[in-house]
């Protein structure tokens, strides 16, 4: 058993937890789940799967470093978040599966059967709220006594914690800062996220799915949203919480966060790859020429991208939406896709910037 843990489970988990594996694995897992959601959400499959995940966590706790990491008072909420997410994700998909099957049979969705115009304030609203209130309070009291607030030493500008982490809800953003220029990751991307969320009512004209769970009727919208939420938000928070250790290095889930461990990364730009590595010559002096490869790549991505999308994966959507809406959707989508691309570039080829124009503070 111990051998299994030491020589199979640990290496496997450590391998999967490598970010350039974890992100694609999470993406593929999400796509597969959404594709085979009707089978996979059946309790006889989903429950063992959930138990297996929980069991994995419990077994992993035999490793002191893993245990220390997940039981750190700061990190406990993230563990709860992961299991909560798993549960609600399953719940929504399960209902969507039932509803979609029902719709295929021509029956109304589950929610339609439960539909009420009104319920009694007492006991159906207030009493339930009261019970929730008391339960949550009790849970908080137990939590507070068992895991006291993690107070640390007095803050000192001369001695900062290593690693210095943002609050958990910002860890996704902090993770992005690793890969992008601060103005891009800290200003532009968050703005795009907010703009994108605001744009949903205007671009998403599909009236289906209101008031009941469904996947087949809104497959594109849900897939894109879940990618944004689960892969680019929750997974990044998980990475930031559990896998980013001392000196902001990546550590496997069973590794000790050794502050002496240093890996000085030497990252390079597209222009350097093109001019120096491929053409084996010096860098051109003019920034425009120097950055031409990057500019061309980025331009092609952002200008040709919508056209390609319209002809391929978003063929249906292109037909449904007008040109303005489609462009908006495509551009937002391309922004979203640019993020994992850049991250993979960093992990696989130490890519620093696609466009690097320090003369004008433009680094992408």
């Amino acid at each position, binding site marked *: 058993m111990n051998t299994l843990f030491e020589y199979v489970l640990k290496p496997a988990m450590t391998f999967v937890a490598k970010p350039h594996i974890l992100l694609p694995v999470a993406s593929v897992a999400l796509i597969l789940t959404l594709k085979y959601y009707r089978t996979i959400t059946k309790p006889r499959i989903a429950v063992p799967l959930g138990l297996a995940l929980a069991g994995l966590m419990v077994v992993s706790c035999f490793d002191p470093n893993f245990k220390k990491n997940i039981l750190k008072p700061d990190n406990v909420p993230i563990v709860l978040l992961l299991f909560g997410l798993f549960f609600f994700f399953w719940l929504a998909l399960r209902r969507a599966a039932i509803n979609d099957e029902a719709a295929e049979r021509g029956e109304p969705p589950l929610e339609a059967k439960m539909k009420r115009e009104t319920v009694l304030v007492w006991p159906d609203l207030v009493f339930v709220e009261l019970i929730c209130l*008391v339960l949550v309070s009790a849970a908080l009291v137990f939590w507070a006594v068992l895991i006291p607030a993690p107070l640390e030493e007095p803050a000192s500008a001369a001695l900062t914690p290593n690693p210095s982490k943002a609050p958990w809800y910002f860890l996704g953003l902090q993770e992005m800062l690793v890969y992008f220029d601060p103005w891009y990751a800290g200003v532009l991307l968050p703005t795009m996220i907010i703009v994108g969320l605001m744009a949903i009512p205007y671009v998403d004209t599909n009236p289906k799915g209101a008031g009941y769970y469904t996947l087949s009727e809104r497959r594109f919208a849900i897939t894109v949203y879940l990618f944004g939420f689960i892969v680019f938000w929750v997974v990044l928070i998980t990475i930031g919480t559990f896998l980013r250790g001392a000196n902001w290095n990546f550590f496997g889930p069973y590794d000790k966060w050794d502050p002496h461990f240093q890996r000085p990364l030497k990252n390079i730009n597209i222009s350097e790859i093109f001019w120096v590595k491929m053409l084996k010559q010096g860098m051109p002096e003019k920034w425009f020429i120097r950055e031409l490869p990057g500019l061309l790549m980025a331009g092609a991505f952002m200008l040709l991208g919508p056209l390609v999308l319209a002809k391929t994966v978003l063929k249906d959507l292109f037909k449904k939406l007008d040109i303005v809406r489609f462009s908006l959707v495509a551009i937002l989508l391309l922004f979203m896709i640019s993020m994992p691309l850049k991250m993979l570039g960093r992990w696989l080829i130490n890519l620093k910037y696609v466009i690097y124009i320090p003369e004008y503070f433009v680094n992408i």
Partner: protein
Amino acid sequence: MTKRPSSIHNDPGYFYSRKLLIRLFAFASLAFAVGITWWIWVDFDRPWKDDQKAELRWEAGRFALERFVLENLAGADEAKYAKQLEEAEAKVAARRKEIDAIDAELKQANGGFYLADMTYKEQKQYTSEAEYWVQEAGTLAELADWWYQLRFHRDREDRLRDARERANDQLQALLDRKKAAEAELDAVRAEMRKNADLKRLEIVRTNIQKKRGYNRAREIPLLDFLAPPVKVKQIVLDNLVDNYEFSTPKKVDRCATCHVLSTDVGYDAVRWPVEAIDTKDAKAFEEGVYRFVYAVFDGVDPGKPAPNDPFRRELDLVRKARLHAETLDFLFEMEDADAGEIKVKDGRKVWKKYVRDGTGLWKQDDNGKSVAEYYLGALSGMKPHWRTHPHFKDMVGGHSPHPFEKFGCSACHQGRGWSTDFGLAYHMPDLKQVDDWMTDERAHEEGYHIPLSAGQTFRAAMARGASPENTGAGGSDLHTGWVTDKATGKRWEHELGATESKLHYWHWPQFPKTLVQSSCLKCHKEGLYRTAEPEYEGVRVGKPVKAPDTTAFDDQSAALNAEAASEPNRLLIPAEPATYRPRELERGLDNFLRFGCYGCHKVDTTLFPFMKNVRPKVGPPLDEIATKTTKEWALRWVRNPKDFRPQTRMPRFFGLSNSSHNFRYRFSDTGNFDDVNGAAWADAEIQAIVEWIFEESKGRARAYPAVDLSRGDPKRGEQYVVADGQASENRAKACIACHDIEVDTAELKVDAAALGSSFDKASGRPTGWKERMSRRQAPNLGGIASKVTPEWLFAWLKNPRGYWHDTNMPDLRLTDQEALDITAFLMTKRHVAFEALPPVTFNESILTRIAEELKVSEQQESTEDAVAHVQRWTQRERVLYVGQKLFKHYGCFGCHTIEAYKDATPIGTELSDWGSKLIERLEFNHAPIEQTRFSFAYAKMMNPRIYDMGMPRADRPFDRLKMPRFGFMPEEAKDLATFLVALTSDPVPAASLFRPDEREADILRGREIVKRYNCQGCHVIENEGGDIWPVIANSKWRPPDLKGQGRKTQPQWLFQFLKDPVFIAIPGVEGSDRIRPWYSIRMPTFHFTDEEARALNRYFSALSRVPADFETGEPDSISAAPYAQAKRFEVKKANNPQETESVDARSSLEETRLMFLAYQCKSCHSKEAKIESAAPDFRLSRGGRLRDTWIVDWLWGPLKLQPGTAMPVFFVDSKGTPRAQELQFLGGNPDVQIRALRDFVRHHYREEDR
């Protein structure tokens, strides 16, 4: 889950099952209730409460006993005490009333002053305005007008200023009155302290015993906010702060929550009940102790323990009269414990005898059941942390210099003061000494942070190269070390929950017990002052002897007091407790100065003013080295100074753990990695340095006249050096007060044993030393002949300052013959083993390489150019270049002056705030030691290169750590580390800083000088020193104890004496250059500066608490001194022949003369006297040597001032009654007789002189 709704009247029905909701609600409420209860209990159930309750019971027990003693044994009854209490309270109330009245007046006066001040300032603006207009007036008329106005305003301003002054005076007067009244109030309060204890007793008894039910109620959770009997005891310190980087809030200490009794007097061990009770009344004692035990055990009768009594174990112990051996050990002084029998002392007399029985327990020999067992058994339950602070008189007590209310605990102990949790208060186990703690495995086991591989790498590297020191592979010269007692830490973790994770977040964990003294320097930046012990008290006969102080905790002084009380005529040592001394810290500072650490490491004198009198460079100047010694000697010496002189302060720079191995080095000229022989490299460096130094000194070498050694007598020389006190005739010089004279110090063991010390063979240092440096003051003279030329030695002996201006070596005023004799003797001392050492080899190619590397590292030209540059030089030029560079690289100028580096800046790390450095900032690298500041410093002292262990930089010779190895003994390293930890820059409000007053500053400065010149090598000063005494057989020839020196001699005389000890010499009088002609050991001429001589003068005066001013005549209040009276008449008569003579005065003078003859003073006090009875010649009194007051004290009781003196007591017998024989002179009044004799002697010899 859902229930179909009823459709009647559009009633939606219930969505959820009500039954389910109610069940859910019930479950939620229950869970919530359980959670809340648990939470309250967790909050309520704190370990400190049990602690405090137990302590309060102890307090009650103590009060019960004290009350009993007061009531029954001291002859007092409760009513009397109550009345006293009442009276005292009335007094306090009256004072309070007075103060209140003053306060009311103050309010008025304040208002008055405010108004006057305001009006005055208002007026001033008009005056100023008028002044302006007067200056700016355009016309005469305007001028006149403004002049008029200005005059008006000025008058008004003057009037208002006066009014303001008057108001201010009134205010100040009131403030003074208030201050006086408050002082009186304090006095009354101090008086009633004992009674206040009584009052407190009532409170404690009431709280703890009588109203138990009520108290229990107040302890109930949630009700315990109503003044519970146990509560957090917190003090807020006004003048001390915590440093949180962004703010510095006042310090808050809650340590007394658990250590309640530690801030109260009388819980140290057990002395108080024993001393409080007069043991003569055994029955009463028994009853008192019984009550005490009864109270301690919360009302359980110790005779009949209940079956479920929690203290059954202790009570059984008591009943069976069996005592734990450690209890006894702890409680009482033991005598002959090894013999299986001890006598238990109660502080005054032998009381009971105990023998060890078969089970190893102590048992009373007669098996009789005594109350003592109750008592002792009870005390075995007292826990160490409940006891009174061990340095209560100095640290915590209300009358100590550091009262608890002002300084709290964490100011010195550090830790988190406001925590009431054992772990979170950051308790730290004490340091413990471990042996051989450097092995990887051992350290790993004990949990030090060691990368095992690093140690192995290091070992492998060491195995490749030459072994660095006398030890084998591993290169460790740390055999012994002080580390945190991990075993205790683990026990605490287990028992008290002080876990490692809890100990993670605080930068200032408590100091281990040994290091608490490191806190002293936080406030004592002006110097580590300790109270000077009073020198004499109760000298005069008839003066009441101070009663023994029962609160004194120092056994020795208490015992002495008791003795003194029984023998009134004896010199009384006052019952002051031994002053706490941070001994490690003191020694650390001494070593810091002695080893010249300041030569390389700056310590900011604005932060630590005690460093301002730092001594000059510790090493001799090198400017004239060529005249003193040879290159052959210097080469071997630099290679390893300890080869020549194990005790030398000169450290070793070469062949240390990071530099002795062979290494691969990339050379600038070839760019290739080459294998380099570490030893050959070091030899090349040594050669270059020595060559350069000798080259530098060439131009300045002076020629000494040749010395004919055959004229000197080595035998006589030896006698001078070792000062065999038996040979009184040869006037020994006693060089051994400061010097050792044998290389192998083991040979000195006989003398060392006499000094109470022994020698550590490995380091060659005495191990028994405490505060004194004794013979380590000066170099060991063994083997000196291998080092210096006789010409130089002769010249040096004649005038040490001629060669080295700042030397501490005094001028012994040697005649040529004496100097020759000593030279002849010392030149017989060759160091054969040193001379036989292999010579330092010279490898030209390595030296060239070194020169190139150094030239390249200057970075003034390209690598190629630099290499070519060096190639162009001659070999000699390269050697000198390397020598000069390395002299600087190793910072040799930190200790030695040399012209080329006269003004060079020190090369070491500044240490001003070393103790505040964050642990994270210390470069431990792979050193297998604990990660604490102390351990860092300690390991650095023991092996200065330890932090290069396993580091790649050790292969780059000029990147290595440079600090040399001083070869400290573990104790020295520990002391130095303690000192370094103490150098902090934590903010301390000015009000808490130690500011010495004039006297304290004088004493501090004096002690510095005494240390520097090793005065205590010969003299006993402040009860310390006299290192030379044990080797001088005849006590009469020992240098004097300087106790009371300030009271004894007049400052102007002492000043001159210090400057030039032979100034007293009367021309043509043999032996008159010494006060005691029979002394063979001479006081050397130290060439003190005026400042130093003055400072010493002030020091002695300060110790004796007399003014250091010059005496101005007529110091004596008794004007009836007949001789002086007669003299005054003579003077008057000379001026005015008509003056009629007073018969009394004339006859008094005659009587004095008769008395002088009768006592035969001159039979001893003259140079004709025999050595055995010789006393200072009266003629020396003409220098104004002695203070008038001292002479009086001396004649009253010489033995009190100088135990063992041959001076007889003439005037009183041992009981203090005037002797019958003396009654015949001057009306039989000894006071008058003594003054008359004093004046007679002084004036008589003045006349004789004329």
